[in-house]
């Protein structure tokens, strides 16, 4: 049943997101074309407009992926559509997992589209070399491979997004347990959960810092003294995020399993 739920959740997102994906790619292609032609005044104006549109679409994709995932979660569980979702012969855990997996898939798709759009618009041999050298500069300093650096960086970005996503789900579940001011309380609970999760990450890094001078240096110094501290910070943050996301998903499912109260 999870597969069937996921199928319809993905269909919903495809319907709502595909237009932004297409527009981002189209504006990126136009920008690329206009960058390669002679920069007359008109060409420059059009190029600036399409570049602005492309960046607007990129920002739109990032924000919309998160917002749409929250809206989908709320609408299909707590609004009119909830009359169907909550009466399907499926468990609450399956409903929750479907929404979460759908959001994860679209985070990855959206990320690929964003990178692809920027690459289409600007990437050439010189910029590619510049980017490689830039990353090499960082990875040499950190004494890690480029692959490890990129996967670590993407890992942190995605875990941060998943954490924000789940804090939103948590806020919606708690907010819609109340009888009044449900939207406002959802936002409030979501922010509290997000703030708490960030504080936990920071607090745990600080605790590790009590036993590791280089990590404590991140709190006490204005400049990076040891690159090893950054490596520990990355690894530690990822582990803490994974644990927080896992624990919060258990809490969300427990709360959801206690039942809903539809208007």
């Amino acid at each position, binding site marked *: 049943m999870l597969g069937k739920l996921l199928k319809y959740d993905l269909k*919903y997102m495809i319907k709502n997101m595909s237009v932004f994906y297409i527009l981002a790619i189209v504006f990126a292609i136009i920008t690329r074309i206009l960058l390669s032609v002679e920069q007359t005044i008109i060409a420059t104006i059009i190029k600036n407009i399409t570049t602005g549109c492309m960046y607007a679409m990129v920002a739109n994709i990032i924000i919309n992926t998160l917002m749409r995932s929250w809206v989908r979660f709320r609408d299909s569980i707590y609004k009119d559509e909830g009359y169907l979702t909550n009466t399907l012969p*499926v468990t609450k855990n399956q409903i929750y997992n479907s929404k979460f997996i759908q959001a994860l898939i679209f985070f990855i798709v959206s990320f690929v589209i964003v990178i692809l759009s920027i690459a289409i618009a600007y990437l050439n041999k010189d910029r590619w070399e510049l980017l490689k050298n830039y990353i090499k500069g960082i990875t040499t300093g950190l004494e890690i491979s480029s692959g490890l650096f990129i996967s670590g960086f993407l890992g942190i970005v995605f875990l941060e997004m998943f954490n924000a996503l789940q804090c939103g789900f948590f806020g919606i579940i708690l907010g819609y347990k109340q*009888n009044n001011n449900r939207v406002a309380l959802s936002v409030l609970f979501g922010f509290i959960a997000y703030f708490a999760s960030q504080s936990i990450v920071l607090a745990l890094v600080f605790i590790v810092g009590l036993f590791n001078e280089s990590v404590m240096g991140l709190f006490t110094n204005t400049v990076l003294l040891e690159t090893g501290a950054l490596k520990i910070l990355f690894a530690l943050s990822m582990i803490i995020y994974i644990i927080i996301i896992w624990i919060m998903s258990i809490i969300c499912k427990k709360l959801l399993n*206690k039942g809903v109260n539809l208007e």
Partner: protein
Amino acid sequence: MSKDNNNLLEVKNLKKSFDKKEVLKDVSFSIPNGKIIGLLGKNGAGKTTLIKLINDLLTPTSGEILVNGNKIGVESKKVISYLPERTYLNKQMKVTEVLNYFEDFYENFDKEKAEKLLKDLDLDITQKLSKMSKGMQEKVQLVLVMSRKADLYILDEPLGGVDPATRDYILDTILSNFNENASVIISTHLISDIERILDEVIFIDKGKIVLQSDCDQLRKKENGSIDEIFRRMFKC
């Protein structure tokens, strides 16, 4: 869990409060197989709250609900076909997509029957729900609900906001589309319209069940139609 006393639905000491307001007060009743039951009461009596609780759309404050001996959950949802009092389908979907959706999730959904009923109603199955009127959407929902081979059909105000001709069609659709062993609960305050099809009635008032009776016995005992008895009982 075993089936309790051959009852399809058992509601035991059910209470529901919103903040400090008690909407359902210690409600207990049972429903056997093969009956059409009218859940009758004035507006705000607690009919929809009771129905939502049976369908897992509200969490009870206390009490128990059993369907075929099972607590409310996946198993109960397999055998209950529920028509809410509002349009609840994703309006971005076409009718054909909704049919596929029901076929995907409900093993007892008869897609061919649904297509036939929709055709009888002159509804275009290629049309998006957002392009349909509210009345048309309600008909689609009724068809979906009645095209399941369920044990218990729960219809919340199926006649609300529809013209008299359509009311007759809805009642005929209900009568001709459920199997003998299934039961139907119809919640309404339009009693005269549904009286002809009811086997039993449950009167609910201020969150309490005030009467549960066989329709024929009640008419004989009180010497009047169900509509008249209801009016006498709940006279303002």
